């Protein structure tokens, strides 16, 4: 990429490189200090906030794990996110397939509806959703929350999947029809396997906000056994307000699952989360 690269060591290129390094420090330093602080006592944090701990003791983590029920919160987050994702992926793959591959009577109307669904701010639906879940007997139920999240993720899922299905060659479908495949076989055996990478994009795009949400669980789930990580973290912060070491440990624990997955799959995450804004 010779054409792109700046002439080596112009002041401008040095400035840009400096900016990148500075930005990386600004991003990583707080996270690093948080993790380090999780190994310190409150006294140590006050005495020398940026120093390494005198000993790498896991006391704070042990305390948090036993007191904070983080195992429960993590499990709940997994249940809710996974449940919603299964529904989102299945339904939006199916609907995206129909909208991307067929022309039919209400095609335009349905597609418009999906696009409008993208614009609805979910937070403003808090009260009616609450009343509705109550009427359906789905309050304080993980299943109810899963359905709400699924509905919230479907517009984006259908939108993304429609685009990808539309881009698949017509001939493939024709070949399958001539080969004798029925509608379901064409969908499940020919088309669906081709959009697997795109399904991953939809999954990441829709799962991260669900995993990170705290408003809906706070309002819709009242049982302490059902709390998800963000909500659980909030409870934990309330209970241990001045135990800085424990708070940092709680924070580290709460962030850990997603950060680990991100470290493994950062490319997919970046692609997935910017899918709505960046085509492809």
């Amino acid at each position, binding site marked *: 990429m010779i054409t792109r690269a700046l002439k080596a060591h112009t002041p401008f290129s040095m400035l840009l490189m400096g900016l990148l390094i500075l930005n990386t420090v600004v991003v990583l330093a707080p996270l690093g200090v948080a993790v380090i602080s999780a190994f310190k006592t409150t006294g140590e944090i006050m005495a020398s906030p940026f120093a390494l701990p005198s000993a790498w003791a896991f006391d704070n983590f042990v305390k948090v794990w036993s007191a904070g029920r983080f195992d429960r919160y993590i499990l709940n987050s997994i249940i809710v996110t996974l449940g919603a994702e299964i529904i989102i992926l299945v339904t939006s793959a199916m609907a995206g397939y129909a909208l991307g591959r067929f022309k039919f009577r209400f095609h335009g109307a349905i597609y418009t509806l999906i696009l409008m669904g993208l614009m609805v701010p979910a937070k403003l639906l808090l009260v009616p959703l*609450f009343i509705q*879940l*109550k009427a359906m007997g789905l*309050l*304080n139920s993980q299943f109810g929350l899963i359905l709400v999240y699924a509905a919230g993720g479907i517009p984006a899922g259908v939108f993304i999947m429609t685009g990808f299905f539309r881009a698949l060659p017509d001939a493939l479908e024709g070949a399958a029809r001539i080969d004798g495949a029925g509608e379901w076989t064409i969908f499940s055996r020919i088309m669906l396997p081709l959009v697997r990478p795109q399904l991953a994009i939809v999954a990441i795009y829709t799962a991260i906000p669900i995993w990170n949400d705290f408003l809906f669980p*706070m*309002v*819709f789930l*009242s*049982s*302490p056994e059902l709390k998800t990580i963000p909500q659980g973290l*909030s*409870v934990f*912060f*309330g*209970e241990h*307000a*001045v135990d800085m070491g424990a708070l940092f440990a709680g924070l580290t624990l709460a962030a850990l699952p997603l950060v680990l997955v991100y470290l493994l799959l950062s490319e997919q995450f970046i692609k997935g989360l910017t899918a709505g804004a960046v085509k492809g």
Partner: protein
Amino acid sequence: MKIRNLLSAAGIAAMALSAGQAFAQSVELSFWSWRVEDKAFYDDIAKDYAAKTGVKVTFTPYKNTEYPTVLSAALAGGGGPDIIHARAYGALATLADAGYFLPLTKENVPNIVNFSDQLLAGAKGRTPPHNANIYGVPFATQALGIYYNKSVLKSAGIETLPKTWDEFKALCKTLKDKNIACLSNGSNDVPGLEQMFGVIGPNFYGGTAFFNDVIAGKKKFTDPAFVQAIAETAAMKDFLPRNHQGVGENEARTLFANGLAAFYMSGTWNIDTIRTLNAKADFGIMAAPPLKADGAAYVSNFADGNYAVNAKTKHAKAAADFVNYLASKEYGRRFTDTLKQSSAITGVAPSEPLLVALGEQASKNGTPFLMLVGFRYQNPNGSVMLRDGIQKIIQGGTTPEALAQEIQTGIATWHKFQ
């Protein structure tokens, strides 16, 4: 015949099943609260209660800022716990008026006779028919005062406590000059600011007489005395600790308990917490010094909150029985001895000397904690306007006069003034 036999068999089975659930071990009561600090106490109570009756009670505290949301959402959703740790006055009335609470009577909670009518007033609904019922068993009365750290004062060379408000302010100035924080209170925690007002204000606006007058609509919040009460409270900003804008309730307690400030304006519920934070802390509690040495030193007090029963509970009997236990003198004794708060139960005198000391003051010059007792029933809410307003004055966003006017306008939308 066959069908009838089958049906009756099923009926018997169902009865047996429900009977089994109603009895003994199978009853489990859930109990929600915002009292994160008291979890150990309530767990102990639950353990002993289970040993005695076989009824298991699970105590779950929530972060205090989220508890109202979680609770009102759960109740509105037809769920929620069996036993509800509820506030008093407006906060309770709102939920009671919505029909979420089971009315408590001499029949289902015989121990209800253990409370004074004045305290039970904080456990009633506001609108008919709910205003005729009692929905909670009060658990504590609280008084507001000034904590003082004896060791800090001694090390600053101060031997006697101030006798007048001017002396108090002069003392604060002295401490400030010596680089010692006078107050540990922060201005980040707005309920704490309202409590500061509860400590300082009554001496300026004239305590109970003013309370009765605004309740009756004879006086307005624009009254110069009330304006001055606000101004005096906000003027404390000069004596707040470093970074007071960021200091909340937890930090204020920590600062005071660790001897990093001389005084702390707060309520009696904090005695135990301060000792927990620092077992060696040597402190006392007093009422705000009067304007003149022989003047009245008012102490704001209030019924702290109530134990209520969810109207939708599946175990109404067991829940009422448990609440009845929470209304017993035996429990009251344990409550006040362990948590160092004044039990709401008549005849249960506190053993904690600090409670006794402030309690004597309160019995002479007690006055209702103005906004909490009188003006939390509707929006805009008196407490919210007052506390947010004091914070705004401290941060330079408004003036006492403007705040008084705002409160008057706001409350006039739902309270009658002459």
